């Protein structure tokens, strides 16, 4: 299974492929299978650091009861089986990045670029982006927007940027604790804020954090951030509201809130496609968008009668592929075949 998950090229890399699939959720993964049967090669891009989309991020352990043939299967279980199923087609995975631009080149192919500066040139594009890209949640602290990217950061790209700062880290999960442990040695001071005494981060991280606390190397405040202080995007302090309603101010120059992820449509809105309430309208014959050669399948599309079920996305992937092959192989006569009986399909699957 891991052989298929090579993590793409480096920054600046250019990948040429038949199809780019945006989104590595179940529908995007199954599209690799349906396209693969038609000899269409795929590069799969996802903002998360692993395949699976919502199944992997939101409910890896929750049982799903409406996948045909599986009376019960977990989100991660389904992703694992899909990865196994598409392995014969050797898709390339380009993870932890978001497609930023999508444009049609003069020859009719598409060029896509990601926020990691990877470029893709493809004959068809399949948008299987579900609810959009997972992005960090913004805490509803009044005026926090004014400090974003200057004093408030939702991820650590370069640790050096936090050297000699008074850091405020908010949250109780692995991200909050990992960065507390990693940034403490270079920060001028570090205060961790969490709304309760219990942490859901790995026990080892929690123990290490408590040791730092006992040694007086970090400070801990029980509560929630209710207000930020500062000017022109330069943070000087944060007000912490305790459970009892008390308010105390903590001096800080950088804040890192870790409140999990939420789904946002993101740059899809800027690609010139027709949209309807943040969904992409498609036809139900080919699941094509308003642009020839750009398809949308799964939760992100809409059409009369649409329901957001994984199994519906699988069906959409199959019909989409039958049209995509006409663009990828314009001169080829496509004969519909069954995997149960076609020796040519079975060869592709590596079973004969």
């Amino acid at each position, binding site marked *: 299974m891991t052989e298929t998950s090579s993590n793409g090229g480096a920054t600046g890399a250019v990948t040429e492929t038949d199809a780019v699939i945006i989104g590595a959720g179940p529908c995007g993964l199954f599209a690799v299978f349906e396209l693969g049967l038609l000899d269409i090669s795929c590069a799969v891009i996802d903002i998360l650091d692993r395949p699976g989309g*919502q199944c992997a991020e*939101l*409910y890896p352990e*929750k049982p799903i009861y409406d996948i045909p043939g599986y009376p019960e299967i977990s989100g991660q279980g389904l992703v694992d089986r899909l990865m196994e199923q598409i392995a014969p087609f050797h898709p390339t995975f380009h993870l932890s990045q978001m497609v930023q631009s999508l444009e049609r080149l003069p020859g009719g192919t598409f060029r896509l670029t990601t926020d990691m500066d990877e470029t893709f040139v493809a004959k068809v594009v399949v948008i299987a982006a579900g*609810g959009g890209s997972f992005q960090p*949640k*913004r*805490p*509803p602290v009044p005026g926090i927007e004014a400090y974003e990217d200057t004093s408030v950061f939702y991820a650590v790209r370069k640790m050096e940027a936090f050297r000699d700062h008074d850091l405020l880290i908010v*949250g*109780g*999960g692995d991200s909050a604790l990992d960065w507390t442990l990693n940034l403490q040695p270079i920060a001028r001071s570090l205060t961790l804020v*969490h*709304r*309760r005494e*219990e942490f*859901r981060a790995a026990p080892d991280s929690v123990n290490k954090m408590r040791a730092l606390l006992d040694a007086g190397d970090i400070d801990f405040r029980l509560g*929630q951030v209710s207000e930020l202080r500062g000017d022109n995007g330069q943070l000087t302090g944060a007000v912490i509201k305790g*459970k009892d309603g008390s308010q105390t101010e903590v001096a800080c120059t950088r804040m890192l809130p870790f*409140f*999990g992820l*939420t*789904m946002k449509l993101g740059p899809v809105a800027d690609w010139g496609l027709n949209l309807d309430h943040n969904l992409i309208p498609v036809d139900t014959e080919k699941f094509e968008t308003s642009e020839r050669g750009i398809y949308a399948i799964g939760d992100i599309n809409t059409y009369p009668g649409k329901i957001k079920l994984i199994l519906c996305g699988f069906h959409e992937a199959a019909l989409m592929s039958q049209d995509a092959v006409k663009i990828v192989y314009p001169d080829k006569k496509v004969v519909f075949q069954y995997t149960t009986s076609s020796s040519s399909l079975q060869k592709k699957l590596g079973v004969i």
Partner: protein
Amino acid sequence: MAKITYVDASGQRYDVDAENGTTVMENAIREGVPGIEAECGGACACATCHVYVDEAFMPVVGEPEPMEEDMLDFAFDVRPTSRLSCQIRVSDDLDGLTVTVPERQG
């Protein structure tokens, strides 16, 4: 069956007849109560169906399980009466329950 009242952030009230075994979140979505987003569909995986339970009902509704408590870390303005409505199952005991929707879900 239980009658449940949802109060949205603007103070608007929604009375719903909820069937036993359903969740407080499901009934809010069916009724279209503003502010209950339930992004993950009820998997206790997102904290966007956060509500405040009427204090008088707290002993009946009960405290969150550890998994829900973990997820509440992602909710905002969490209070002692905070619960994720997808984790509250309706029973006759909840008849007359009022829950209030926070100003925002995140």
